[in-house]
């Protein structure tokens, strides 16, 4: 994993037993993970009693470095050996490496989910509803007497949902369902490979 100089320096500070004592270390880790996972930024997050005695600038440096490191590790799905060797190179003691790794494992899935939700994608179909109607006549024509379907696809894109409505005849609906079944069959075949 490539880390910038400032991140490396911040992490080295964290590793330094004289700069960050044992309780401060655990608290800093927890605070950093919590900052990533909470939905709102909390400006008082570094105001923990165990961190009161530390230099403010160092605190911010460490906090920024740790959060960056966590995100990179999750992004690249780094395994234990990668994380360990990376931290050891930055002068982390074996004990601190282990504490970091355990905390990382605890929160990894949640951070992964958060990262996956970032990004652009096509609207995602969540549900479909339908209505079968019988068209008898309208203002322009009598004696139509044809059944038709009204289909509504409920889609969602980045939080906002939108309904896509369209009509189709029975034959068209059969065509639509046949094509969707083809897609489903290919998914099944692919999953068996």
């Amino acid at each position: 994993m490539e880390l910038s100089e400032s991140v490396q320096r911040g992490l080295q500070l964290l590793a330094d037993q004289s700069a960050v004592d044992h309780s401060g270390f655990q608290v800093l880790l927890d605070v950093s993970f919590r900052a990533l996972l909470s939905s709102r930024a909390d400006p008082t997050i570094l105001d923990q009693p165990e961190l009161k005695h530390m230099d403010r600038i160092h605190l911010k440096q460490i906090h920024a470095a740790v959060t960056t490191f966590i995100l990179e590790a999750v992004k690249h799905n780094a395994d234990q050996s990668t994380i360990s060797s990376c931290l050891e190179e930055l002068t982390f003691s074996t004990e601190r490496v282990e504490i970091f790794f355990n905390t990382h494992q605890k929160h990894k899935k949640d951070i992964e989910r958060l990262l996956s939700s970032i990004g652009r994608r096509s609207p995602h179909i969540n549900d479909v509803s339908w209505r079968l109607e019988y068209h008898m006549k309208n203002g322009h024509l009598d004696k139509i007497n044809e059944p038709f379907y009204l289909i509504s696809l409920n889609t969602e894109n980045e939080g906002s949902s939108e309904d896509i409505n369209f009509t189709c005849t029975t034959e068209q609906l059969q065509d639509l369902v046949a094509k969707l079944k083809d897609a489903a069959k290919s998914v099944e075949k692919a999953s068996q490979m």
Partner: protein
Amino acid sequence: FLLMVSFFSYTVIEEFGRIALEFLRKGANPKIYEGAARKLCVPVGMVQHGVEGLMFLMTESSKHMISEVDFMDSVITLGFGEELNQSLLQLYMRHKHQVRSILSQLLCNQPAYHNLEWRLDVQLASRSVRQQIIPMVTIRLLLTSYDANSTHSCMDLQTDPSTLLHVISTLEAALAAMKTSHARRILRNIK
């Protein structure tokens, strides 16, 4: 209008019929009226009324799907010759489906299904996460809407395999609704 129509021959009626249909499809074209008026040596207003009247006859007949007999009965009351009645009937019979389809486009506001294309993808990575394996089905839905002209719209959507199965089973239930005895009874009896 119809009094004037009785003076014209069959081919003229044909011509008027064609103009009337074009009118239905595209709207009135004054140049055509002027051309026809010159050819027949009548004032433009007469041509216009003739065409409009003919058009009205066609649309009302097509709207109600009048049978041949009923059409003849209505036309006879106008007091034309037999030959004219026959040519009007021919015009109606030949064009009534066309007229109906043109009229049906007046109403259709909601987009109608045209086609569906699909693709199976597996997302491997994104800017924020590497090493993913996310199967997804990308769907291109093609719809046609009939407001001004036939405008085609196409939307790209995606879904995951389990939602796809849910959609399929829901739509199969929709198709099954057509086959219930309730639906069959209604379709049979309302004609």
